[in-house]
């Protein structure tokens, strides 16, 4: 038991070296078998790398769960114009803190992932777009990139294998919307962080309008493991369609909050009650957000499901980026939802009318309800605002803001109504 807490039911593939400061150095990393994966990838055919990752079934860990190998296979095969790999290290989804830990403890693992990904898609330049507030992680990454350059593991003629791959670390300025891949690309180019209309997708017109693949930190690191050990090895974990292991970030009312790595498909109830130890007070769980603030809420009774993309979808929510927020029965759901919608209102880039106006309007109504001044028709209005915000905008931030409103009204209507009662029952909290 080291790194704040390690549970025996974990399967530690990506997080194996968390808590070992020596793993941060190139020397320490190589002593742990580091750079074998990248070396192997760069000696393979580029298409074989893509095929291996495709065969592993690895799905993007940034939230949408799109298969990583398939995304790479969309990149043009021609190399007449520059291609770019962009690693999405903006990690701003409330409740998420896995990429930060991956970069803090195993920066060279990400560099390996970058080499593998860049090589696979014919990119000679990889960017790491890192969240501006991640000072420590950024410093560690910068040092590791320096070491890699010094060792000849980045830049010209990587590993002496005749492949050029430059790596640039780019700090964001603290906007959630710059985690959305096209908003990220605009920000990277020095423009306002505003998501772009798709199509064209980044694989056709991405960074600086050139073909680009955007991959999450965890996706790239997992891809390096896949290349080293093979698709079949990776598929020993998980379910048929959700393969491998994944980091889950747990916060809220649990005894042991933190990052845990388990195979996809792991039982969610067991995860919360056993791995995380249940609520600190032993009080019943009222609600759980299973995949980051952007996904619909589950009630405490809906937890007996698998932690994989399909099971979560069947339960009406999403695995997202694996950020689990647990709330016990002392929680004022209206306040939590208001808090989240405030966040989205603050973070909306403001391009699309439904998102720009809908988030602020909904936040204002929620605040009024929270303060005990709700009116009977407010819930209907909120539901319609959510409906008008969903599926109608350039990016899905708008949908993400609507999801907690709709699901909380559906599942916790009582909380809202209690606040509207003549003597608001929960307003005091």
């Amino acid at each position, binding site marked *: 038991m080291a790194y704040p807490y390690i549970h025996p039911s974990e399967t530690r593939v990506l997080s194996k070296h968390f808590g070992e400061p020596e793993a941060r150095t190139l020397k320490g990393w190589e002593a742990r078998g580091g750079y074998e994966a990248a070396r192997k990838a760069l000696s393979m055919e580029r298409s074989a790398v893509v095929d291996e990752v495709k065969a592993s079934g690895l799905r993007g860990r940034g939230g949408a769960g799109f298969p990583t190998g398939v995304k790479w296979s969309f990149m043009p095969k021609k190399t007449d114009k520059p291609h770019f790999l962009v690693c999405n290290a903006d990690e701003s989804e409330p409740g998420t803190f896995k990429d930060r830990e991956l970069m803090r403890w195993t920066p060279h693992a990400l560099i390996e992932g970058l080499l593998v990904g860049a090589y696979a898609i014919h990119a000679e330049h990889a960017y790491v777009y890192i969240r501006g507030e991640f000072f420590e992680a950024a410093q560690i990454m910068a040092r590791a990139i320096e070491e890699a350059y010094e060792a000849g593991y980045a830049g010209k003629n990587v590993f002496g294998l005749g492949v050029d791959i430059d790596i640039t670390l780019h700090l964001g300025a603290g906007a959630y919307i710059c985690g959305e891949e096209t908003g990220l690309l605009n920000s990277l180019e020095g423009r306002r962080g505003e998501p772009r209309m798709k199509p064209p997708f980044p694989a056709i017109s991405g960074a600086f309008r050139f073909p680009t693949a955007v991959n999450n930190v965890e996706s790239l690191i997992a891809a390096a493991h896949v290349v080293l050990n093979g698709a079949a090895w990776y598929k020993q974990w998980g379910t048929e369609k959700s393969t491998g292991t994944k980091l889950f970030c747990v916060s809220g009312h649990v005894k042991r909050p933190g990052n845990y790595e388990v195979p996809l498909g792991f039982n969610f109830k067991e995860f919360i009650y056993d791995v995380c130890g249940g609520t600190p007070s032993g009080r019943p769980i009222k609600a759980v957000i299973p995949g980051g603030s952007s996904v619909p809420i589950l009630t405490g009774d809906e937890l007996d499901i698998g932690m994989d993309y399909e099971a979560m979808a069947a339960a009406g929510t999403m695995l997202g980026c694996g950020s689990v927020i647990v709330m016990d029965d002392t929680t004022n759901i209206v306040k939590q939802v208001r808090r989240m919608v405030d966040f989205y209102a603050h973070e909306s880039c403001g391009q699309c009318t439904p998102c720009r106006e809908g988030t602020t309007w909904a936040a204002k109504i929620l605040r009024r309800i929270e303060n005990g001044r709700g009116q009977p028709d407010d819930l209907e209005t909120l539901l319609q605002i959510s409906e008008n915000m969903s599926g*109608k905008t350039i990016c899905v931030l708008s949908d993400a803001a609507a999801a907690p409103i709709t699901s909380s009204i559906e599942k916790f209507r009582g909380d809202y109504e209690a606040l509207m009662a003549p003597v608001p029952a929960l307003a005091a909290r």
Partner: protein
Amino acid sequence: MAETSNAPETVTCTIDGMEITVPKGTRIIDAAAMAGVDVPHYCYHPSLSAPAQCRMCLVEVEKVPKLVPSCSGTVADGNVIHTQSEKALQAREGVLEFYMVNHPLDCPVCDQAGECKLQDYISAEGPAMGRGKEPKRVLGRDDFGGDVLFYADRCVMCTRCVRFMREVAQDERLTVVQRGSRAVIDTFFEEGLEGNLWADNIVDLCPVGALVSKDFLHKARAWDLDRTPSVCPNCSQGCNVRLETRDNQVMRIKPRPNAEVNDHWMCDYGRLNYEWINRGARIEAPLVMDGGRHVSVSWSQALTRLADALRDSTAGVRAVVSPFAANEDLGTLRRVLETVGGGTGVFRCETGEEVPLPGFPTLKLRTDRAANVAGAEAFAFTRAGGTDGTGGIDDVAGHDGVIFVLGDELADAPADFGSRATLFVYVGQFLSPAARNAHFVLPSTTFAEMEGTFTNVQRRVQRFWPALQVPGMARPAWQVLGVLLAGISEDAQVPGTAAEAFAALGAVGAGFAGLGYDDLGAMGRVLPQLGALAEAGD
């Protein structure tokens, strides 16, 4: 598909039940317009990029799960598109309701009222009742520099203004600052839009009353204005415009689209330089010199006496004309001059720096700051005087034969101008000191009071229509001179209409032969260049 053809590839789709075939790659919103369907929109503008951000133009395309923004979605073969389906209408109603979350609804004091896209779409498709209970955002107003005033609360964040400055003016003076509902349009520096010649186009582009003209501020309500298609008189570009009038005054000038001349734009110099059209103290009756002083007479008396005087004259003729006069006026004068044995004529034109519009370089504020320099040249009048449009008429001033002045006010002429002339005819609008020496003073209309044409710098002949009432007995010069011509020439007919006056210009105007108003079309018609005509022996 085996044979190759040069015809552009087309696709066929159905829009609101109407089948339409359009070139491949046509945007849904444009295809809909071709089918006669106006899809509501704010951020889209045909001459700007389409960011698809207002979400107002969402339409339903069968077999596509999400609603499609019709400004960026292109038509695919076989698409069945519904702009009025329940789903599309509900989405658009939702968007309109969202605008109301912060819009101040100060229509009673807003200059845009009556021509506001928020009013229009709300009344067409918006919710009947507002549900907003929350206080609205209050931002106030800001002087953006130049002629532009910004009422931040009314802004619908369509970013048309930002994109115009970036893409068309190519002078980034505006930007969106902040994000979410805190986002506002702002200028970068203290000077804001000051000094950019094209900035007022953003007032036209703004779909609401967020950007308004200082010049027009609280001057008139949109619904009280009469709008007349016209041509900007202020330089030789000939931007297509509307004269917007009330109480027989031009209140403002707005551009009319012409893809070959000015696209949707015009310059601030041309737009704001209209007070001269409203100038009062006009000559309102024909005057004849009788015993050393002017007496007002009827038109028939004036023109009969003038015809008699001209018929007997054998003296040489000199003319001074205005490059603001219509082709019809200049050409008819040329016909008169030919009839009395020819004569030389000059025009004076103020000139200035040429300023192109970078995103549409066909459009430039031209060096010649008058609309019909090319027309004057086509009728063989030659340039005289300096860059400020004065001087160059000293030899005419002392001429001892016949002098014709058409439209030139002679403001800079010596007080004894024409005093040695055997016959001095002044056709114009203002009784300047020099004009007081004329034997005949014949009141004529400005371009704004008549139908006619200008020839622009491309030699494009473009029509304009009367927007203002004629003062007193003033008449278009072509009519005055046309009657005179019939009085001195056996074969000349009196032209009954501007069209007839125009059709008779062929003999005297290079390139005008055989042309009628019907040949000019909506975009005007370009005459062959003078050089080309000379080579062809015209």
